[in-house]
Structure formats: structure tokens, C-alpha cells
């Protein structure tokens, strides 16, 4: 019971601290801007721990964060092996192949206004579909190892990146293109020096959407057959064999990998499109 009380008191205290911080005169500083969400996250974990301990929830149903952390530390080699299989081999290679293919297709299609008008609505529609359902078909085609996972990821990331790139390539206005023409710039010069840079915010938007899709695709494809390693494999067998703490450790790895992947792309975006109004400091 005392755990429960402690968790609730911690919650109220953290909330009061956050409220006073958010209304204090330091609210604009970076420290406070980071501290508030971190405190919020810590509160969630403390609440979780307090409820599990206070109410005596069985670890087979919901393990406490401390148990998960213990399992995480004890099985880093399994987690690393799964991480390599799923994230580095499956998701990352699929992401790179899919992004390059979408990019090349977008530049080819962009040369024909007719194709662009036909492909944009179709691409937008396909991007909204539950493409994840093709996972069993592709596992059937490409076998159980990481190649089939990469194939699922390729198909999943292709359309969002394609649609965003095609849209981005249309972003320049007639005035800017005319200026390039007065410089006697050819198609290639205009593409590299004007239209691709102008399309970058859109391309990165597509890449950011694709980071999450890549991980989802790689994990789901493993539910349909995989060698005896990989995060999806470990999660589906872990649920069956009641090693729920290991499943939560895998979820933690998946969450961290997803956030890091997204953060990496967002960081690259800031470095590459520093000139864009949304990244300028005023």
C-alpha cells in the first residue's frame, strides 16, 4: 500500500513542480524545456512501478519497470542479436533501398507532368493503405531470413517517400525557374541547384514518416516466420512462453531504436535544411 501512496504523492509533487516550472520565468530556457517532459516520463514510470508493487500485480501479467530493467541488463547479448537482425539488417537496409528507389522513381516521374498527375493521387491512396498485410506474401517469396523483412520495409516506405518527393519537386515557383533559365541552366543544373534543395523539407517529411513504418514492417514480418532471432520472433515466442519481462525489454529496445532512428533523421534534416523558415531561430 505504501508503494501506491508513494507513487501518488510523487505524481502530485512532480505535477506541481512542472506547473511551477512552466509558469516560472525560466520557462524559455533549454534546461526547463527538457526537464519538464523528462519529469513527466519519470512520473509515468514511478506510477507504473508503484501500481504494480502496491497492488501486487503478477509479473506474468505486467512486470514492474525495475524487473524489466533487470532483465534488460541481464540479457543484453540476446537483445543485441535481435537488434542486429531486425533493425540493422531488416529495417535499415530496407529503408535505404526503399528510399533510394522512391527517390529515383520520383525524379523519373517528375519529368512527365502527365505521369505526375496520375501518380500523386494513386500514391497518396496507397500510402494510406494497410500495406503491412503483404508481409506474409513477401515472406513466402523471399524466405525467412532478413531479406524478406527488408522487402516488406521497402514496399512500406516506398510510397510515403515517393509522394513527398514528387510533391517537393513541384515546390519551386515559375519565377525561380525562370531565373535559372536566364542563367542558361539546363535540366540537371536546375534540378540539383534549385529543385532538389527546395524539395528537401518534403523529402525529410517522407523520410521521418518512413522511419516508424520501417520498424513496424520489420517486426510484423517476423511474426510470419523468421530464423530463431529477431525482435518480432522474440516478442511472439515470449508472449507464448510467459517470459513477459523479456518481451517488455524488447519493447523498450524497439521504442529506443524507433526514437533514435527518428531523432537521427530529424537531426539530419536540421543540418541540411537549416535555411528553412521552420528551423530558423528568431
Amino acid at each position, binding site marked *: 500500500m505504501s508503494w501506491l501512496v508513494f507513487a501518488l504523492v510523487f505524481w502530485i509533487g512532480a505535477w506541481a513542480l512542472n506547473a511551477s516550472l512552466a509558469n516560472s520565468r525560466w520557462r524559455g530556457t533549454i534546461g526547463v524545456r527538457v526537464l*519538464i*517532459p523528462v519529469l513527466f516520463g519519470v512520473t509515468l514510470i514511478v506510477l507504473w512501478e508503484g501500481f504494480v508493487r502496491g497492488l501486487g500485480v503478477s509479473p506474468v501479467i505486467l512486470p514492474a519497470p525495475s524487473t524489466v530493467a533487470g532483465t534488460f541488463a541481464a540479457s543484453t547479448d540476446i537483445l543485441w542479436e535481435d537488434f542486429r537482425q531486425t533493425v540493422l539488417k531488416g529495417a535499415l537496409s530496407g529503408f535505404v533501398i526503399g528510399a533510394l528507389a522512391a527517390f529515383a522513381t520520383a525524379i523519373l516521374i517528375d519529368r512527365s507532368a502527365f505521369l505526375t498527375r496520375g501518380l500523386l493521387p494513386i500514391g497518396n491512396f496507397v500510402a494510406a493503405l*494497410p500495406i*503491412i*498485410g503483404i508481409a506474409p506474401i513477401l515472406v513466402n517469396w523471399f524466405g525467412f531470413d532478413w531479406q524478406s523483412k527488408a522487402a516488406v520495409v521497402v514496399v512500406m516506405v516506398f510510397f510515403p517517400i515517393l509522394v513527398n518527393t514528387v510533391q517537393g519537386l513541384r515546390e519551386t515557383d515559375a519565377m525561380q525557374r525562370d531565373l535559372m533559365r536566364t542563367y542558361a541552366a539546363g535540366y540537371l543544373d536546375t534540378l540539383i541547384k534549385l529543385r532538389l534543395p527546395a524539395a528537401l523539407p518534403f523529402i525529410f517529411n517522407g523520410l521521418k514518416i518512413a522511419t516508424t513504418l520501417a520498424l513496424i514492417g520489420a517486426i*510484423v514480418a517476423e*511474426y*510470419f516466420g523468421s530464423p530463431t532471432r529477431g*525482435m518480432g520472433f522474440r516478442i511472439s515466442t515470449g508472449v507464448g512462453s510467459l517470459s513477459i519481462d523479456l518481451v517488455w525489454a524488447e519493447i523498450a529496445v524497439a*521504442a529506443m531504436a524507433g526514437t533514435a532512428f527518428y531523432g537521427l533523421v530529424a537531426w539530419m534534416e536540421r543540418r541540411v535544411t537549416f535555411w528553412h523558415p521552420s528551423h530558423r531561430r528568431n
Partner: protein
Amino acid sequence: MRNILPILAVLAALAVLWYAAVAPMNIRGALDVADRGGAEVIPAEPRDRFEQSAWRLMMANPDHIALGYSLDRPRLPTPVQVADELWNTTGEMALRGRAMSKRSLIYHGWITLQSTLWGFALGTVLGMAGAIAIVYSRVVDMSLMPWAIISQTVPIVALAPMIIVLSSQVGIEGRGVPKAIISAYLCYFPVLVGMVKGLRSPGAAQLDLLRTYSASGVQAFLKLRLPASMPYLFTSLKIGIAAALVGTIVGELPTGAISGLGARILIGDQFGTPLAIWAALFAAAILAGILVTLLDLTQRIILRRMGMQA
């Protein structure tokens, strides 16, 4: 409307590519069937065929390529086969008055649609409530917003089996609720982001004007912020319902569900009936198209009534 012709052209090109791909994809299966039927096949031994590329097999057996277009269990079915299967499991069953039979995709689509709509409703309510809290409270804005973004970078499929385990332990029967939770998880974020943008869209001058009328906070919300957010809301709702459908199907795929479009895909995989998988996939696509189109129509009608052009 001027896009119709290009869209049809692209679709036709895709169909041609698809038909062209069927031949190399299915040549092995076609040769196996022909071999079992007693026809002359080069090379005659299945083991030898296994080692040759699809292209060489096609060159060596030009007569059997056509067979690949009518296999029972093709690696890649033709569009016509998929359409046939789709019709057999929807329209024809409905005509025979068995639309809700367990073998009909209408029944499975209905199961998926229910979870999708519950998840969509839950996600929309959560997203709107979160947006209102974020717009009106600085603490919530600073603490919740970063986590809302992080929550979307977490691959939900990893969590899906746990959500199902948890909800069955808490005593919730069936798979409807966990599926709805998963789809709400995917659907709340676009609504949240769109509503925050929409609720903040009225300018300072407009808010000041309401203050000179001595309007209360509730009045400012109901008469200015909420109407101003409508175009943003509908744009996000369209993304949200597509995400909710993806969430429901993800919730059905890895969890051993027995009804729903995702379950059809799963069962088609386990029983080796590719046509069932393809039909379920296209049924899901059609469902997504219908849902988004319905929301689009609602958006046009409501925004026109409110005096905003969609």
C-alpha cells in the same frame, strides 16, 4: 476531374506490369503442375528445375507459360483471379443471402470496420481532449507534446501482443477492445496535432475582438477556436481513419485472431491460399477508400454549411 485520364493511364501501366510479372513468378508452379499432369517439361527433374532461373525455364518451356495465369495456388495471382476471388467472397455470397457467413469477406470486413470505428472514436476523443489541454495549459503543452511525438516513433506492433495479454487478464473478453486500443493509439496523433494547429489558428486580433465583447473563455472556445479548427480537424480525421484501419489490421495480424480482414490474411498464410490473402488485402484497400471518401464528403458538406470552402 482532369486527373482522371492520367490516373487511368498509370493504373493501366501498373496492370500491364503486374501481368508481365505473373509469368516469371509462376513459371515454377506452372511447370510442376504440367509435370504432374504428364506433359513434357524441360528439364524433367524437379530438382534440376529448382536450380535454373525463372527466365531460362520460360525460354525452355514457352508452351507452359500460359498455365501460370490460371494456377490454383499461384505465387502471384493475376488481377482477374484476385477480382474473381473478391467477388466470390463478397458479391456472390451476398446474392445468395449469405453475406454474414464466416467465409464471406463482408463479415470479416464488418468485424474489422467495427474495431476501426471504435478505435477511431476513441482516438479522436483522446486527440481532441489532448489538443484542448495543450492549447489551454502550458504545463500540459510542455510535458505532453514531446511524449506524444515519441509515442509515434515506438513501433506499436511490438506492443500489440502485450495489449492483448493485458486486456484479457483484466477480464475483457474477445479481441474487439484491444484492437480498438491499438487503432486508437495510431489514430490519436494526427488528430492531436491537427487540432492543436487548428485551435491556435485564430489570430491575436480575433481573440482580442472577443475580449472587447467581454466573451468568456468558454464562449471564445465555442464561437471562435472550435469553428476555426474545423478544416484542420477534417484533414486530420482523414489521416486518422486510415491510420485506425492500419491499426486494426496490425492488431489482427500477429495475435491469432480468427475473424477480421487481418485474420483472413493470417489464415490464408497458414493454409497456403494466396488468393485469400490477396482478396483480403484488396478488401482492406476498398474499405480504406470508402472510409476516406465518406469523411471527405462530410467535410465538404459541413464546411460549406459553415461558410468555409473545402
